[in-house]
């Protein structure tokens, strides 16, 4: 297993900056998840590391060796394709054996390795089928088997769970994590699902318009988002844009009766208040909840039953009557109820 370092990768398609100065490290045996919305450049980053993108600038190092101009077939970096890319004219066995045959293993070694990987991924007995005779979940595992059986230096996964049912997805998430740890695979995992990334990764990078906005361990990304985009992208969020003001050289922004101090670098004409629907509490207007730092008032204007919780839409008592926020709570209120919304200082982000 190996370490991957990219330095200042750039790739432009006309005006589109698919990669815009992307620098990151993947430490040996760890899993780096890259998240970002569709079109942010995740696949391009992956394909660059695999060697399929002719970069406009930047360098890629594998174990300290410059591999920027090494052709894909000489990198020993395995890629898992979003559409699986299993060859339809070959059996499962031949699909998995393909990379092994190119590595000149003999027949017995190949059979042995395939037995090992099929057992590891719990897909024995499918060897003689064609990919079209498999379920989506089985195809996904075969593609994974084909990628890891050659013992690559790095494993690249492009949205490996995106074509699966929500239920299987959750289970396979655990399995991929366990597999990656067991084999100590240096892994780059691309997804647009922030929850998936946070739960599986050793480190998370957030990508947007070809740029890495923040890179850190999952807790850090979640609790200390560096930019409005990161804060908004991670978790179910409320983003309230308001005009702030300056008093005695300090910037402030109001939300109803609540006065919040803004960091010095914000644009007072456009202050964003961000907090997560799960990190606030609500109570009847005349009650208080101890242990909370902030409070603003509002009226319940919408209610959804979520099974384990209620999801409320709260219209904030503010000079701007259009401000609505989403709050998840297990308390039962009715539409029209006047309530207070309680927040903790470190759960409110101002950009």
């Amino acid at each position, binding site marked *: 297993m190996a370490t991957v370092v990219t330095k200042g990768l750039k790739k432009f398609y006309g005006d589109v900056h698919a990669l815009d100065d992307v620098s990151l490290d993947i430490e040996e045996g760890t899993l780096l998840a890259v998240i970002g919305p569709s079109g942010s450049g995740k696949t391009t980053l992956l*394909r660059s590391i*695999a*060697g*399929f993108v002719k970069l406009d600038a930047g360098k890629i190092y594998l174990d300290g060796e410059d591999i920027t101009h090494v*052709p*894909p*077939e*000489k990198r*020993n*970096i*395995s*890629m898992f*394709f*979003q*559409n699986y*890319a*299993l*060859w*339809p*004219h070959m059996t499962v066995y031949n699909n998995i054996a*393909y*990379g092994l045959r*190119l*590595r000149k293993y003999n027949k017995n070694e190949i059979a042995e390795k395939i037995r090992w990987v099929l057992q590891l991924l719990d897909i024995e007995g499918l060897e003689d089928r*064609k990919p*079209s*005779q498999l379920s989506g979940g089985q195809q996904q595992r075969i593609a994974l088997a*084909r990628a890891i059986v*050659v013992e690559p230096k790095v494993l690249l996964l492009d949205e490996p769970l995106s074509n699966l049912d929500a239920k299987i997805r959750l289970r396979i998430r655990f399995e991929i994590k366990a597999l990656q740890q067991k084999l100590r695979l240096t892994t780059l995992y691309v997804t647009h699902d922030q929850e998936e990334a946070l739960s599986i990764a050793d480190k998370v990078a957030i990508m947007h318009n070809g740029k890495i906005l923040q890179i850190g361990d999952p807790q850090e990304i979640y609790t200390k988002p560096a930019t409005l985009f990161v804060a908004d992208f991670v978790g179910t969020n409320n983003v309230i844009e308001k005009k702030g003001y300056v008093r005695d050289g300090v910037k402030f922004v109001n939300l109803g009766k609540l006065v919040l101090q803004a960091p010095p670098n914000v644009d007072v004409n456009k202050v964003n208040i961000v907090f997560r629907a799960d990190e606030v509490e609500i109570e009847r207007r005349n009650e208080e909840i101890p242990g909370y730092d902030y409070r603003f008032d509002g009226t319940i204007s919408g209610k959804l039953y979520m099974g384990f919780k209620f999801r409320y839409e709260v219209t904030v008592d503010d000079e701007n009557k259009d401000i609505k926020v989403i709050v998840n709570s297990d308390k039962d209120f009715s539409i029209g109820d006047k309530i207070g919304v309680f927040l903790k200082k470190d759960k409110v982000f101002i950009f």
Partner: protein
Amino acid sequence: MGTYENKNNLFGFLLILPALAVLGVLYIYPLIRAIYISFLWKGQLGLENYTKAFALYRKDIVYTLGITAATVIIVFAVSMVIASYLRFKNWKFLDYMYRLPLFIPFLIVGHAMRVFLAQHGVMNMIISRLTGIHRLPGLASQWLGLTLAFAWVLSPFAILIILGAFKAIDDSYVEAALNLGSNKFKVIIDVLIPLARPSIMVALVLTFVRTISSLTIPLMVGPSKPTMLPVDMMFRVNYYNDWGVANALGVISYVIVIGLSMYYLRFMVTERGGLKH
């Protein structure tokens, strides 16, 4: 539900009726007539036309099959190389050049090839310049010249079909192979050709049929003896007014083509069946 489907079927049938009618008038009727005439000898049914055809033209039948097979092999090789190249590399010049013969009538192609392949023609001039060898045979009246002429005219069709099929194969199939350590040449063999096999078969069958049924090119290029069956048929009609033997030769060509088509259809059925469930 049932009536709806019936109505739909009827409507569908009406839609293809004109095409069926054209097919019947222009293809099936002449075919049946040709078969009928080929068995007609002095007003009676019999095998005499065939006996005569085999006695006079056995050599030409073999020659026709040989030229056709050689053309198919050369077209296959050329189209594989060019289609593979253009699948990976975008070379505009080649992309236009290979299509050139598509827009030139066979008659002119035949004439051009005659000039190109003549003893003091363009090809020999170039080879002489390059190698310094001056006494080169002219290919224009040899079987090799004829095969080259066919290959030049028919390759563009084959390349067009095969390149289309190659381009329709998703890049991820190619990249998956490269990713696992394959080189481009192996990708062509292991991925592109197997996935494009039905289209390659179509291209080769088309090449075969067009070669075996071509009249213009063997009239202008290649030896006058032996010659290809369509030329013999023309002579049979023009000089001897012998429709019986001419049609017998035609039916023999048909049988060869039908034999090939059967093989092709069987291949398609197993291919489809293999891909399905």
